[in-house]
């Protein structure tokens, strides 16, 4: 027999769900959506800071999702007051989405060339850059600063002392790993800043017991290669791409001008290069003339030579988001054809690429490509030609690019794709 107490209890139990639903409807206006979608199509107010917001979310210990090819590579974040606040402060537009909305999104992802990648940790980032270099001198540090993504600066000392293993991702500033100071002596021989650079590098070489700056840079290049082989993720732009590879291949052969090496360039350098040791390029011809402002014929455009090629546009490739998530991540964008931009190394000749290199973007119909990626040992590398996506003909002394005026830059998005992709779950990075 039920007591009055038990009958009341049973009645309450029956009413509870109804009560819950009724109350939910009453408070529906005050209740929040479950997720925040950060759309990355043309409707986004600040694409670049959207990456920074996502990074910040990861730093707070939350997970995020990268929806590859869904609305140009949108992000899905948890809906929390502090995340909404941060998005508002950063000027990043977001859309609250309910669980039902997310179900629909996932269904669309399932049936299309799209994929959801879980981003689970904020990668530790190192930027290889000489000390006292202003951040506006390099597109990647500009992007990181604007997006408020923290990074550490490392230089030769840190590399030679094995510090790279502390970082998930390494970006190379426009360093000339052949040790020739980007051949700036041709046009800027009397500039104080060049003399400072030479002094700094020579002091470092002496401190570490190297007979010359080229020898120092070769050792640094070797440590970077080891970093990648052991699982590190490398991103390089401009001169660093080509010269890193040249430094790796030039074992026992001098490819640096007398200005920096103190001896003539080996006339047989091209034949003696050990392309076995490089990651991306092979069979290139070394520039033997110290007066020519070029390092080798890897670069397609050769901007500072009489045979410089004009700029065109480059097109991003499509990839299968489900089967090739890594290249897909690297090309996420709201534009597919981008204006090209010069750098000391602007592009990469197709016939100098090693087999297995994945081409991410090319200038159609031309003999060169713009953006490439590959694996090496346990790690990966990505090379992007050119100096600054929003400054096609950047010259030394030019005003820095103001990213607040370029917050939707598709070129800078490619850089930030590389910053965020190490955050993906390990099994994704292995595919």
């Amino acid at each position: 027999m039920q007591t009055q107490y038990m009958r009341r209890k049973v009645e309450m139990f029956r009413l509870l769900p109804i009560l819950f639903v009724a109350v939910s409807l009453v408070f529906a206006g005050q209740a929040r959506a479950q997720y925040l979608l950060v759309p990355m199509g043309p409707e986004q107010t600040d694409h670049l800071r959207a990456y920074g917001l996502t990074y910040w979310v990861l730093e707070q210990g939350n997970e995020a999702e990268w929806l590859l090819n869904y609305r140009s590579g949108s992000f899905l974040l948890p809906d929390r007051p502090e995340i909404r606040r941060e998005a508002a402060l950063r000027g990043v537009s977001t859309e609250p989405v309910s669980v039902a909305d997310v179900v629909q999104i996932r269904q669309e992802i399932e049936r299309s060339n799209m994929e959801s990648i879980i981003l689970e940790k904020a990668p530790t980032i190192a930027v290889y850059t000489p000390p006292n270099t202003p951040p506006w001198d390099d597109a990647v540090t500009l992007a990181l600063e604007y997006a408020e993504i923290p990074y550490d600066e490392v230089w030769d000392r840190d590399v030679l002392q094995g510090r790279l293993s502390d970082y998930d991702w390494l970006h190379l500033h426009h360093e000339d790993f052949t040790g020739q100071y980007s051949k700036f002596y041709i046009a800027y021989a009397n500039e104080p800043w060049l003399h400072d650079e030479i002094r700094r590098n020579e002091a470092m070489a002496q401190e570490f017991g190297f007979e010359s700056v080229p020898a120092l840079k070769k050792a640094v290049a070797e440590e970077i290669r080891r970093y990648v082989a052991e699982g590190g993720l490398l991103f390089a732009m401009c001169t660093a791409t080509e010269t890193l590879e040249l430094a790796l291949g030039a074992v026992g052969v001098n490819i640096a001008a007398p200005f920096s090496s103190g001896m003539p360039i080996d006339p047989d350098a091209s034949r003696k290069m050990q392309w076995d040791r490089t990651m991306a390029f092979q069979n290139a011809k070394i520039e033997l003339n110290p007066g020519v402002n070029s390092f080798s014929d890897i670069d397609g455009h050769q901007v500072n030579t009489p045979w410089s090629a004009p700029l065109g546009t480059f097109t991003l490739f499509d990839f299968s988001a489900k089967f090739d998530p890594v290249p897909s991540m690297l090309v996420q964008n709201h534009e597919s054809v981008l204006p090209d931009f010069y750098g000391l190394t602007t592009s990469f000749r197709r016939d100098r690429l090693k087999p297995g290199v994945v081409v991410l973007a090319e200038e159609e119909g031309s003999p060169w490509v713009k953006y490439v990626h590959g694996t090496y040992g346990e790690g990966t590398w990505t090379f992007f030609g050119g100096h600054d996506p929003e400054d096609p003909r950047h010259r030394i002394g030019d005003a820095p690019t103001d990213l607040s005026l370029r917050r939707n830059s598709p070129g800078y998005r490619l850089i930030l794709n590389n910053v965020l992709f190490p955050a993906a779950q390990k099994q994704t990075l292995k595919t």
Partner: protein
Amino acid sequence: MCPGMNRHGDASACHATCGQAGAGPAERVFRRHSGRVIFRRCFPVLVLAAAVAVSPLPGRAQAAGQGGEMAALRDAESRRAQGDLEGAAALLRGVLETRPASVAALLELEQVARLLGDPALVIEPASRFVEADSGSALGYQVLLRTYTALRRPDDIERTAEAWIRATPDTETPYREIARTWETFGDPGRAVRVLERGRERVGRPDALALERAELYARLGDRNRSLEAWDLALGPEGRGLMVVRRRLATLPDAGAGYMPGIIDRLVAPGSSLGRRRAAIELAIAAGLEDRALDVAQGLAGELPRSERQPFLLDMARRADGARMARLGYWAYSELIAAGGAESRNLALRSRAAELALAVGDTATARETYVELERGAPAGSEERRQAMVVRLEVTAREGRLDEAMRGIETFRSEFPNSPELDGLVAAVAAVALERGEVELARDLVEGASGPRSAMVRAQLALRAGDVTAARAAYTMAAAGLRGEEATRALAMATLLGRLSTPAATLVGRAMEALAQRATEEALALLLEESVELPGGDRSAILDFAAGLADRNQMPVEAESIRRTLIEEHPRAPEAPAALLALGRALLRHPESVAAARDLLERLVLEYPGSALVPQARRELDELRRGDR
């Protein structure tokens, strides 16, 4: 799909990825002459070529060139994935015979050899790698790892010496060799290698980080501190990497932080080192230390650097939730003057922090100023009023607060903050025992937070049903931990008998007056006489209270009681898991923790908490704890 196919279906990019395209020799021959005759002559050749192409001959990749090497590597990976480790190893050895310096093949072979249980497989290829690429560390590293796995110290020593001979003046060999010896189980030898390297390389900071870590692991505190100091450098530039390495120590480096900070702020230290000291103190949660150093440093900085420094301190303090440090930094920034809009933002933050540090008088004054300065009906005025009224209530001036709420209601009738404001003032009223006042306050309010107060009031009055309904109502409008707690209360009240629910109500009364110990004592002592189902639920509730009020000893004791007295209660698995996790924090009770977690898995196989217990046990087994 070819990974290089572009959007127009142009396969030209495939050449870079997929190897050569175009017509082969057989096809060209067939076209040039009469088809049948040529086909008869070429047929045997074609058959033989096809047989070679499909045959699983090992080392076939030798003749293929680099495009063939890529294919062989992919083939090896595929065989490995299918479990054909012997086949994978054969292919990789073939690649390395053709190209001894192939990094990908060597590293892959090392892994396959390990899976095969025959690490020695990689010795010969690694030795040839070293000969072919003597400037590279990779070959030596593979050899060292292999000899470590095979427990061959003489070979480790021989390889180490060869590597040092090859590159005696660089740090890399000494670093890696020391790591090898430590893995091998001979940390003494590792230390000697590092010291030898430091002497040979000749720089004081050579191998400093590695020495610091190793000495820390060996318990040599003084040498470790000295090495951390060197690793930080004269300008403190090594801070980030030192912090990361400290975090990997068993106590996350907490034992070393104060000593390192002392060295960083020693007389004569550079500004860079002192800034590093502040960052380290903040990371270590040493707020007083951080504040002390920051105040000293701020006084020495030129005006142009002082402002950015203070801003940096303010942001770091916010990030680390260090209210006193932040309060100082914001106050200094306000005193330095600046644009009015910026000052408004700074004053607002300073007022919040004043509250946090307990300086309610300053906080209230600041909010009054902010309120007066903001336009009528504006969001800034509304928010400043809310905080001002809460502070007024907290200072005990309840009547003034209540009058203020009436003014607020008339000026901002639909304010979203009203619910929270009313609940906050009502909570103060309850704390002071002013139950009727609290009841009056929530009477006209609607919202989840005032619902929580109504729930407490109902519980005090013994109306369990009304309390449960109010908690349920509150849960629907709250998020995260608040919602969980409200729902947990509703569920708890649903399980308890009336006497037990009344006991909980009395405990909540004590809690409202911040008498947590009294509340716990009440729950523990007076629940003894209650039926079993009530007692276990109340013990579980009490343990949660102890957790939330940072009373770990009490929480542990309560959970032990629950497990001992009521092993079959529904709350027992959660108690086992929570107790196990708590014990894991202390190295001396890891064994006891393991017992508890195993008990959860074995005695409650159907519990939803078993996967979590398994995860904890797996981490214990792997030595991740």
